[in-house]
């Protein structure tokens, strides 16, 4: 049982104080003291969350809102552009574009890094804004960085398969970089689903990959405690999601559907609470800009080419074929034991999209003798936006690469 003295409340204390001028004079201080005790017992709600506090909270919020509306009215779409680092288009094929970021050191490392991002969302998360950019930090530390932008697939791209993405686009980009730089091999940095693609590519073309870095990349898809994997059908298969039916009916999978799926992993926090918290930061233009940039990135979701989605969901999420060595990319079989190059596996400890165990499984299936694993105490998105990670992650990558050039 609880005692009432825990619930002293300044507003009640103030209102029931005998010194308050308009209180009836015939109540003695003892009487008021007694009354205070009674109030505390009878009004536990108010002593937990006081009227005064609530009013104060509301007033502060209103002030922030007023300032926030002022801030918002000054902002325009161009203020929240993503992809801050200067870059050149060096290669184009169909809807994909290969960018080379302008090096910022006189003599970058001889072997460039090709960043392979996921098909979900835009790749510019790695270059979100000037002070929160993995790319900018890698450039500063002396890397020569390339990035594949997958573009926005339309209905005409519905028939693209993983074969086109991996044996086609990625291979062509790698060949372009090799030819341009007159190199036998390049470094690959695969992020999220792009990490899984990089694993497939490196196992198919080990002769073209010098070092492989994978970041928050799913490897083992049978994760019964992960909502994303469970919904994808890692245990139930088509009973959880009939991918064939979905692709047949939709053609391409709409980006909005994927957005909803990701929001529904934490529907209250991501769908509602985040916006209820927004007024709290509205008085700061910088914070609004950060918030809006994230919003832009989150909801700027390209559709997924239908046949690619079909194969990825069925073979990877539902069949877990990557670790079984059963994935076929075109007519080539992916075997993770072909991965003999040095591998750096980076994962997020609090990742709710790619559970750490899923990434960590990689070690069991590769044959490389040079395998490094490094974790960061953040979630999936924190890997790109956390200030602490942006301080520690780029040097981790660059130092690791420098010792392997």
């Amino acid at each position, binding site marked *: *049982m*609880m005692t009432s003295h*825990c619930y002293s409340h300044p507003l009640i204390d103030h209102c029931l104080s005998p010194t308050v001028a308009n209180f009836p004079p015939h109540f003695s201080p003892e009487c008021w003291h007694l*009354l205070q005790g009674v*109030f505390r*017992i*009878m*009004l*536990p*709600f*108010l*002593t*937990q*969350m006081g*009227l005064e*506090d*609530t*009013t104060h*909270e*509301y007033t502060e919020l209103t002030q922030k*809102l007023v300032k926030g*509306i002022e801030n*918002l*009215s000054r902002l*325009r*779409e161009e203020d929240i552009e993503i992809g801050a680092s200067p870059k050149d288009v060096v290669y184009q094929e169909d809807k994909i574009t290969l960018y080379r970021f302008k090096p910022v050191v006189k003599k970058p490392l001889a072997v460039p890094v090709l960043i392979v991002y996921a098909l979900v969302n835009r790749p510019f998360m790695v270059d979100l804004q000037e002070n929160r950019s993995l790319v900018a930090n890698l450039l500063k530390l002396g890397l020569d960085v390339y990035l594949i932008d997958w573009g926005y697939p339309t*209905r*005409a791209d*519905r*028939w693209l398969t993983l074969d086109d993405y991996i044996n*086609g686009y990625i291979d062509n980009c790698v060949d372009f970089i090799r030819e341009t730089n007159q190199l036998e091999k390049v470094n690959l940095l695969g992020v999220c689903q792009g990490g899984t693609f990089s694993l497939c590519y490196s196992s198919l073309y080990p002769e073209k990959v010098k070092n492989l870095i994978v970041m928050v990349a799913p490897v083992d898809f049978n994760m*019964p*405690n992960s*909502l994303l994997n*469970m*919904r994808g059908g890692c*245990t*139930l298969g*088509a*009973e*959880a*999601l*009939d991918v064939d*039916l*979905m692709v*047949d*009916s*939709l*053609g391409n999978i709409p980006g909005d559907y994927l957005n909803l799926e990701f929001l529904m992993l*934490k*529907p*209250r*926090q991501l*769908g*509602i*609470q985040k*916006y*209820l*918290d927004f007024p*709290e930061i509205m008085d700061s233009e910088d914070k609004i800009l950060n918030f809006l940039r994230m919003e832009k990135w989150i909801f700027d979701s390209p559709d997924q080419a239908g046949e690619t989605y079909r194969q990825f969901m069925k073979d990877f999420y539902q069949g877990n074929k990557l670790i079984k060595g059963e994935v076929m990319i075109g007519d080539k079989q992916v075997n993770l034991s072909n991965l003999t190059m040095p591998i750096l596996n980076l994962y997020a400890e609090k990742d709710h999209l790619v559970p750490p165990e899923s990434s960590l499984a990689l070690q069991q299936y590769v044959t490389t003798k040079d395998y490094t694993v490094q974790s960061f105490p953040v979630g999936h998105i924190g890997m790109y936006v956390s200030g602490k990670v942006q301080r520690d992650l780029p040097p981790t990558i660059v130092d690791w690469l420098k010792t392997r050039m």
Partner: protein
Amino acid sequence: MTNNNKNWSNMASEVVNTWTETSTQVWRNWFDFMGTVSTAKPFGDVQPELDKFTHRYLDNQDLWLRFVKLSFDAWKDIFPQLESGGDWTKTMSQYAQKMREQLDNVSHGNLQMNQDVAQMWQLYLQQVQKFTQLWLDPMGLHLGTMGKAATGNSSAWIELNNLYWNLFYEESFGSLMQSPILGPTREFNGKLVRSFEAWKNLNQASVNYQVVLADIQVRSFEALMQNLISRAEKGEAIQTWKQFQQVWSEIADDVFGEAFCQEENLKIRGAFLNALSAYRLEQQQLMELFLQSMNMPLRSEVDEMHKTIYELRKELKQLKKDLAQKNVQQEVTSSSKGTKTATTNKAEKSKGTDA
């Protein structure tokens, strides 16, 4: 004293109401504002979509805030009993029951809607195919059964919903609907009937899914109350309305996540998504008939065209690659031939010189 107490409670409720209404209003204004800014019109092109989104968002938020407020009210009632050592569990059960009753009303409404719309379809098909009144009697029976089966348990609603479709529909009208159709309109009516079947499956799956979602809401409410009680027992009071909302959100998401890691719930969700896809496919079939009659290009024709272009493009890329490779090989061969010839000539020349 009682009056004072009442006044305080009223004031507190007033503040909570104001807060929830204000936050909704703020968002409504914010969306309106974003949609109507006239200077740069950054979102001008998406105004209709934005309106739809705004309404969907606000509806959802309204619902959420109402639910939060109900939880908040429940906590106000439960806390005094917890403090005085009284039986707070009874009050909590009453609130949970109250929520379940609301959920039952929603489920009842959905079922009623199923019946109404299904009846309209049935009447239409009666006209088209001269079907009999086979379906009306089971529907009448169903109304009676439903009242008895509504026990407040969410699984009962799912069973009832399935019972409704499987027993009353499938075994009477449903089986008749699946039989081959006769006459010149056979193909069209066949598609129509299959579309209705898919729609029926979607409705059934949708109601089941809604029941699971609503049940999760109730369970998250119970989890919230447990959490608040355990906090209060540790002396960790909730200090602000914002903190209350945050706690509520985190708990609700945890309950939601756990619920959908359970296979039975995943199957219900999967059935809903799959029924949605199946219904869309059937819709497309009907749409194609319509477009065909209007002499318009069909989705399937466009897809077929895209596929052909894709395959040709892929073939072309491969041919280009092969050609480039052949050229390189040829160059290597000819240059090595050239070298060989040059070497031979040189050798012969030196041979001649030697001779």
